[in-house]
């Protein structure tokens, strides 16, 4: 199990921190359809009319918005680190949540031994 988990974690971090830098920058399936009717230059809407013009700014934004690090000058390094930290955070948060869930399940089975 350990070997499997380590291999999986390494693969995940390589995908998030390195392979992600080579991902297509084109709008995805949803965004491209919402952009139909608009003209775009470098990802910015420059004319026409389309659904996506109604979209507002994200409510939170934040330092890691759009998988970057706004406080780093180096965009490539920022994107790579954001991917790695995001994957590690996801790993920690989900493992923690699932652990709590599994632990909660056992509570009724384990007799109260007085140690609370």
């Amino acid at each position, binding site marked *: 199990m350990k070997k499997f988990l380590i291999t*999986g974690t390494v693969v995940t971090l390589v995908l998030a921190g390195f392979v992600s830098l080579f991902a297509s920058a084109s709008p995805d399936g949803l965004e491209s359809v919402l952009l139909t009717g608009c003209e775009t230059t470098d990802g910015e809407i420059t004319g026409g009319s389309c659904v996506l013009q109604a979209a507002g700014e994200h409510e939170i934004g934040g330092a890691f918005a*759009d998988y970057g690090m706004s406080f780093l000058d180096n965009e490539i390094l920022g994107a790579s680190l954001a991917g790695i930290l995001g994957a590690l955070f996801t790993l920690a948060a*989900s493992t923690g949540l699932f652990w709590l869930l599994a632990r909660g399940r056992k509570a009724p089975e384990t007799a109260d031994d007085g140690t609370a």
Partner: protein
Amino acid sequence: MEALALHIPTDVIDGPTSLVFALIAVLAVGWCTVAARRGLDDRLVPLAGLATAFVFAAQMLNFPVAAGVSGHLLGGALAAALLGPWLGVLCVTVVIAIQALLFADGAVTALGLNVVNMAVIATFTAYGVLALALKVLPRTRVGVGAAVFAAAIVSVVAASAGFVLQFWLGGEEVGQSLGAMTAAILGTHVLIGIGEGVITAGAVTAVAVARPDLVHALRGTALARPAAAR
């Protein structure tokens, strides 16, 4: 810098519709939490965490599907195959919540919309197709790969149909009719589904060969050798 926006952004679907889907998402995820608890033992926890992190990473990997259009893994089929439907929904929900709260990907007000489409609809559809396909296909590497491939395509198209429903209820047509938009969304997501199918089939068969006991869809049985008698 070009924005990497993958999910439903702010103000594309109106408030009432977003609220209704937020309630549906809360009910569905709550139900999955209760149901997932029954099948969850400590051994599964690290695998579920790893699968969640993998889905997060894989969602960043946009692959080209047509000129100027990309697609990325949704992860519902992968989560359903490895973890089963209940835990699978929770896995994708965690990813979507982290993306909206930390990475400004997908509006906070659209969380319910995005969770219903990508976590609930995609995962349950994938699990249904997978369960049906594994009834007729042999439990070999090729059979499982084909079942996962089919489940992934149907799940992605179903998730995109979820968006079409939400847009029909609470979106405003601009620049194209709803009919044209529906055709474009479904068509594009067939292509994205093929990409998702290839990646998911590769990932699930890799796990099935190394550790068949970790593939929920196989229910503890090892892969049969193609030539071996059953």
